[in-house]
């Protein structure tokens, strides 16, 4: 991995033993990030705009059947397959380990989306509407992406930025737990833990060393910033 120029390397831990699949994080993300409202047709075409989705797996057969939930968001890979394929450099890696997307550079080739093994990049195939006065809820911190632009989870970069400015104003580093993306903030079971992986004592860093940890599609060598923790127990499958 390359040399880090920043004291931060943002990452997340998703504890699958805690996650109940409730979907609170999905709505929180949509609310925070001006993610478009998609109707039935759009979703039928496979063009849902959610940046964060809960995968659901049925395992086994009745009556010995189980369900597993897997929250999937951008894995902020350190060797991100989406980055080298963008002809206009809209998809890039920042020094804090975030995989960014510069919306006003994006020309909509969708190469990045094709190359993402996690299918977390969503493309604005349509212009999305917020019928008045629903547009009042749009956050002024984030742009509303027009038709033809690719978008995806940013780890709520506007929140990270705000926290950094607050911290810099006080001449200190961002404290552990001071910044949380909208999904982690609302998760009732505290299944999502966000933090600075460059600080070995942060909660996220400690949890990411758990023996239950694994990475999503690890064999692809994408080196994600997200560690999943396996559900424990589950002895009756």
């Amino acid at each position, binding site marked *: 991995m*390359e040399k880090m*120029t920043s004291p931060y390397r943002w990452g997340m831990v998703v*504890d699958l033993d*805690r996650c*109940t*699949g*409730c*979907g*609170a994080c*999905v*709505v*929180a993300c*949509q*609310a*925070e990030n001006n993610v478009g*409202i998609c109707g*039935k047709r759009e979703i039928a075409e496979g063009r*849902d705009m*959610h940046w964060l989705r*809960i*995968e659901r*797996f*049925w395992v086994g*057969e*009745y009556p010995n*059947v189980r*369900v*597993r*939930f*897997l929250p999937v968001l951008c894995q902020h890979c350190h060797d991100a397959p989406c*980055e080298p394929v963008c002809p206009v*450099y809209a998809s*890039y*890696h*920042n020094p804090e380990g975030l995989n*960014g997307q510069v919306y*006003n550079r994006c020309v909509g080739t969708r190469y990045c989306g094709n190359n993402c093994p996690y299918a977390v990049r969503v493309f604005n195939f349509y212009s999305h509407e917020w019928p008045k*006065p*629903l*547009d*009042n*809820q749009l*956050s*002024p*911190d984030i*742009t509303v992406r027009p038709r033809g632009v690719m978008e995806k989870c940013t780890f709520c*970069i*506007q929140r990270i*930025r*705000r926290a950094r400015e607050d911290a810099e104003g006080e001449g200190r580093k961002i404290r552990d737990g001071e910044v949380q993306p909208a999904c982690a*903030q*609302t998760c*009732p079971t*505290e*299944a999502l833990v966000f933090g600075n992986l460059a600080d070995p004592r942060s909660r996220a860093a400690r949890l990411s060393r758990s023996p239950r940890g*694994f990475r999503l599609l690890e064999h692809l060598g994408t080196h994600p910033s997200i560690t*999943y923790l*396996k559900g*424990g127990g589950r002895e*009756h499958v």
Partner: protein
Amino acid sequence: MKRRTFLQLGTMTAAASWLSGCRSANEKLIPYLTPPDEGVTPGMAVYYASSCRFCPAGCGILVRVSEGRAKKIEGNPAHPLNRGKLCARGQAVVQELYHPDRVTQPLKRSGPRGSGQFTRISWEEGLALLTEQLGKLQRERATDRLALVTPPLRGTLAELAAGFMRSFGSPRHLSYELLGPDWLRTAARRSFGQPSLPYYDIAETRYLLSFGADFVEYHLSPVQYGFAFGRMRQGRDTVRGHFTYVGGRMSLTAASADRWMAARPGSEGMLALGIARLILAESLFDAGSLTANGLRADDLLRRLEAYDLDRVAHLSGLRQDVIAEVAREFATTRPALAMAGEPVAFQTNGPDAVRAVQLLNVLVGNLNRPGGIYPDAGETTGPEDSFAELLSLVDRMLGDRISVVMVHGDPVHAVPPATGFQEALARVPFIASFSSLLDDTALQADLVLPDHAALESWGDVIPLAGTREPVIGLMQPVVTPLYDTRQFPEVLMATARGLGGTMAAAFPYQSYLEMLKSSIKKRVGPAGGGDFEVVWVDLLRQGGLFKANNGQGKSLRWAAGATLPDPGEPRFAGDEKQFPLHLQVYPSTAFLDGRGAPLPWLQQLPDPMTTVVWDSWVELNPETAVWLGISFGDLVEVTSPQGSLRLPAVIYPGIRPDTVAIPLGQGHHGGGRYAKGRGANPLALVALMGINREPQPAWNATMVRVTRISEKGELVTAGNPQGSYRSELIEI
């Protein structure tokens, strides 16, 4: 050089342009009373503390407001119930405020009922219309011909509504909600001699045994219990709490269980007694607890003789060894906790089945213990049989003994038609609705006096349950009201003033805010210290009154003379030949009983178990589907003795082959563009069942048959029906 490394040189500027838009820092929490130009910088976001009243749980929220507009709802970390967390519904409440189809001013019906034709009128006119109707009843000395229909109210609003009806002279205030926990209160009264709801210490328990208690979706206090569940699993260093779920359908809650026991519908109470008998027979019970509760093991064992393993296995359709194993695990893992939920309660033997589960808690000695059950500190009283009140109101309406109905909420959608409510309401000469959308009830109304959205309202929100300390959450407006609407309590007070005389005298307040403050002042008591204004601003800033004071002293004890629960075999509506399948109706995770359906974020939220969006569906076991020739997404017809519905089929591996399930929440005639005409309301199928001729809310005691109509179910799922990755590929 990797291209990425090369790019880093240029990315800082790129990041800046990406984040164009003004920087907005967050100010500290401020109460609404602070003048707008004081301490608030334009372009900066501020947070207001308030409370969520979308469901009775009553979580604390913080609303991020920028330039006078509500942007984002977050959990209030200071609130002892939800500690900064929220459910999906709570996140979406901002769309109630900015819903494009809100009723913007009072409306008077101008077409036939249900046609949706209304004329816009002023508040003076609207209030005059209502006062005139009520005045007429007063003059005719027929004040008991007024009925008020609301969901169960708590706190100041409850006081106000009660005062209104009392001073008007009508005892007909119906507080009814389909999912109200009346059944839990009744069971507690019969078992423990007090009607308080239980508080479950899930976080500290080591063995959770849930009989249909769906605490992840909606049961009592979903955010609080979801939080506790996370701790139960991974919050302790060496202990991971075990979770067993009993119920014929694998609910979202059951999906997180280690073991799922698909008991036959209506057999859960007998299963609980079977487990109890085994614990007694094998002397695995807590002797101290039995003595303390005035019970004797030998006596209990004798009286539970009928529930031997063989019979219980036969009744529940479960394997004997599995039942015995669960009984032993439950009795030997301490602390262990048993909960009962709505699917169990809404059966003909529900009331006793719930008590059978309570008895399990007594047997293993977990009353008033960490990891066990305490009396909840939420409201200690509440409706215990509002269903009977609903039926008696229906009777009165059918007998033309009600002339005016004032309705808050949407009972036309959320009350099963088998009760006759909709038909009876249609006979009432004058209906006033306070809905802020033209929902199914407002469409039937003669007058609509639109309420503020929650984020525009004052109020106190007392959580239904979920804490051991009394909590009063406060609601404050976070934005100036968008339209010419008025808060429901303000309208009640204005009506009282309009009626004059004793009515007006009953409400000596200028506004609801004044009444709210005086009632909070009483609750704070002298402990708050000198200047109440200062205290009040503080309370608003933090979101309510969270100090622990009492409630710790109360405890649960099996009441002397309480009968032993005897659920008996369940009964079902519809004969087995014609209607071979059990129907389970359950609250949708996103919409609950239907209140969430108008909000587009919730419509778009894939249902966690089926990933269906913007629709409703019926769940069938794969085996049943093959037998009926039905495939995923087919349009099917579900017929019960009560009615029939068409909707798409979902093949659902987590349901008994003899059961089908339909979520509640869709099938609105009104409710704005996102809800209207979408999906189907399964309440239309539910039949009315009685115990000893007395009708009971046994919503899960209806039998149905399912037939295939065509392949055009138009079902849309967000995920692949099987999930996108093979789960072994990603190691879960």
